[in-house]
């Protein structure tokens, strides 16, 4: 990877301010290492490196605001193994998990194994996983004009992050220029005025501006969602008596650090139910649904002051409850202190919002594009409920679903909520 570019940390991000470099020229970096801190309209985010190698040159000074896709640093090929005799145990560990067949297939298909979700024993990646990933890769090739592709290449814009304005969502040259921050079509001096503008913008940005910018970013994205996505809404009330009893029992026996709250069970059920109804887990791109290969649950977190972010709980469907609980706490704290990772803001495949702590009983959310569904949980309420012909007072929660009618129909959504309900009746299985 010759260049490390300003990543898009969510569909609503157009530019970011590089606050701090955490690496220096000459440092060796590995894929996933946090290399810089970037401020977006919404939050301060620790950005991870997309590949491995040696930092050759930093192209953007701290404090500069640049458009998504702008090169930030040059990263050279990884140092040869003999030059770093201490490294192998760490670097090699990742590779050893995959069988030679899987590695060969992945190389042939150009699939990055670190992005593949393994379904084999112990999470190993199987041949079928590579095939699926390759098929996904082929399907997600963005529809773009030749000129748009060439411009994207020149300007370092990731086509998959650009919303096309042409027929059938085709990405055209102007869409690339917009993302790259080029108001003027081609020609003329590019870099200098842009940099100067960005510096001016950064200087002018105060706290008040930031909150205004966040409102604008949320506004743009939510307007786009409501404009483009035909939402449909479903709601059901779920009896939580079994889950509540199981959780209390668990908490009695568990050390304080491993105690659970109902939200953890709800999130786990929401993630697991996607195994049965994968039609809601993924993205609507180029006029068709692209299923995600893993469940990265976006958890809506209200920020103190204004706004909200929805960072991902990666692979939420595979996390043990105490683990999920820990991650939830961690991500909430970091979201509020503005220290999220880039992959957390960019990866969610579906979002869950819970406004129970605010006392509301039901929330019908707005889908976060390009996701296709949003699950809402209200407050856990004691309600009179008839069970087996007898009336009892039992804890209940209203679960809702906002889903993209382009990607799924009501029957699919209904099946999803029914599955969430079923899973919550067997909390020991979660």
């Amino acid at each position: 990877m010759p260049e490390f570019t300003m990543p898009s940390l969510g569909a609503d991000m157009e530019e970011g301010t590089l606050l701090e470099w955490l690496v220096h020229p000459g440092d060796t970096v590995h894929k996933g290492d946090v290399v810089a801190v970037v401020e977006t309209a919404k939050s301060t985010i620790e950005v991870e490196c997309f590949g491995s190698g040696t930092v050759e040159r930093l192209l953007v000074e701290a404090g500069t605001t640049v458009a998504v896709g702008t090169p930030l640093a040059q990263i050279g090929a990884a140092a040869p193994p003999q030059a770093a005799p201490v490294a192998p145990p760490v670097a090699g560990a990742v590779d050893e998990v995959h069988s030679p067949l899987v590695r060969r297939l992945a190389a042939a298909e150009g699939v990055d194994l670190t992005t593949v979700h393994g379904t084999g024993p112990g999470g190993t990646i199987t041949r079928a996983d590579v095939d699926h990933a390759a098929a996904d890769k082929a399907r997600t090739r963005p529809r773009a004009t030749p000129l748009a592709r060439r411009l994207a290449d020149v300007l370092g814009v990731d086509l998959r992050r650009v919303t096309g304005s042409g027929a059938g969502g085709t990405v055209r040259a102007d869409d690339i220029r917009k993302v790259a921050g080029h108001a003027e079509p081609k020609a003329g001096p590019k870099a200098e005025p842009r940099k100067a503008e960005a510096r001016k913008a950064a200087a002018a940005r105060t706290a008040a501006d930031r909150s205004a910018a966040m409102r604008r970013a949320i506004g743009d994205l939510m307007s786009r969602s409501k404009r483009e996505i035909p939402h449909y809404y479903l709601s059901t009330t779920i009896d939580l008596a079994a889950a509540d009893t199981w959780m209390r029992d668990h908490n009695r026996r568990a050390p304080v650090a491993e105690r659970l709250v109902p939200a953890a069970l709800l999130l786990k059920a929401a993630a697991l139910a996607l195994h049965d109804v994968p039609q809601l887990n993924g993205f609507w791109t180029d006029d068709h649904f692209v299923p995600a290969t893993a469940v990265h649950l976006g958890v809506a977190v209200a920020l103190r002051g204004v706004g909200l972010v929805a960072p991902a709980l990666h692979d939420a469907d595979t996390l043990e409850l105490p683990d999920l609980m820990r991650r939830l706490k961690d991500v909430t704290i970091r979201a509020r202190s503005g220290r999220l990772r880039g992959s957390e803001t960019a990866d969610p495949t579906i979002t869950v919002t819970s406004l129970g702590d605010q006392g509301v009983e039901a929330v019908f959310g707005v889908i976060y594009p390009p996701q296709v569904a949003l699950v809402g949980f209200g407050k856990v309420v004691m309600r009179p409920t008839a069970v087996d012909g007898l009336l009892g007072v039992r804890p209940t929660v209203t679960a809702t679903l906002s889903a993209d009618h382009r990607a799924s129909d009501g029957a699919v959504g209904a099946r999803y909520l029914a599955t969430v309900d079923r899973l919550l009746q067997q909390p020991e299985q979660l």
Partner: protein
Amino acid sequence: MTTTATTAKKPRASSATATTTYREAMRQAMSEAMRADERVFLMGEDVGRYGGAFGVSLGMLEEFGPERIRDTPLSESAFTGAGIGAALAGMRPIVEIMTVNFSLLALDQILNNAATLLHMSGGQLPVPLVIRMTTGAGRQLAAQHSHSLEGWYAHIPGIRVLAPATIEDARHMLAPALADPDPVIIFEHGSLYNLSGPSAEDAGPADLTSAAVRREGRDISLITYGGCLPKALDAAEQLAEAGISAEVLDLRTLRPLHQDAITATVARTHRAVVVDEAWRTGSLAAEISARIMENAFYELDAPVERVCSAEVPIPYAHHMEQAALPQVEDIVAAVHRAVD
């Protein structure tokens, strides 16, 4: 070839500028050529006493006499063949064929003789022949007199194919065509004969190698020739009102095509609509579209659009004929498809 398309010349404010028609310009060009070179003569059906099926040679019999303005029998193969023979023998014949439909009777002479003799004789037998013919529809002459087969001729190596679409080109393309040592076919679209406007008498011989930008624009290129040029210009005018800046490229020479001009206009606007009165399938429009793909693929910001005639024999009834032909609104709609 690295020449660029010439930008449309403004009518010159010289003393020699006069208002004329496309038909008169063509006649002046022939008369001038005949006065300048006694080897030049005109032959064809009804060119003499009748003055030409479309009145292009009206009055020329009186000036030049029956030796040089020759009425021929109704046999396209025979008189085109005679023209080839005369050219081989050192004359500079202009053969007029009434319409491109009838030229098919002479296709053997044109394709198998005129276009090949230079090559088959190892360069010993050039054929300096000019063939003029009317092409196109729009005048209710029905299917056997209305087709646009320029693309068929543009397919043939060994001949040059011209499509003058302006009065200036009608006036000044003939002299260099006669000077060309190889066969040249000039297509005159029937709807252009009554076109009237200023003509610069002293403009000098036209360049037969380059296309011309007739209107400059930024957003899209309308690539056309012959009878569709006025329609493309009208469409560009309408589009300007809608805020779309369309460039109009007049190909002028259909063989060899001016590749650099086509590439250059697409590189400027990144979108193209090819307007061609011929049928879409296997047309010049198809050729141009393919060349854009070959040479300017990475400049394209929208698929190339084509506006061509409906794939039917051109109907006789006025409303049906108009419906079958490319119209200004079709061009405007194609532009919107590409730009919106």
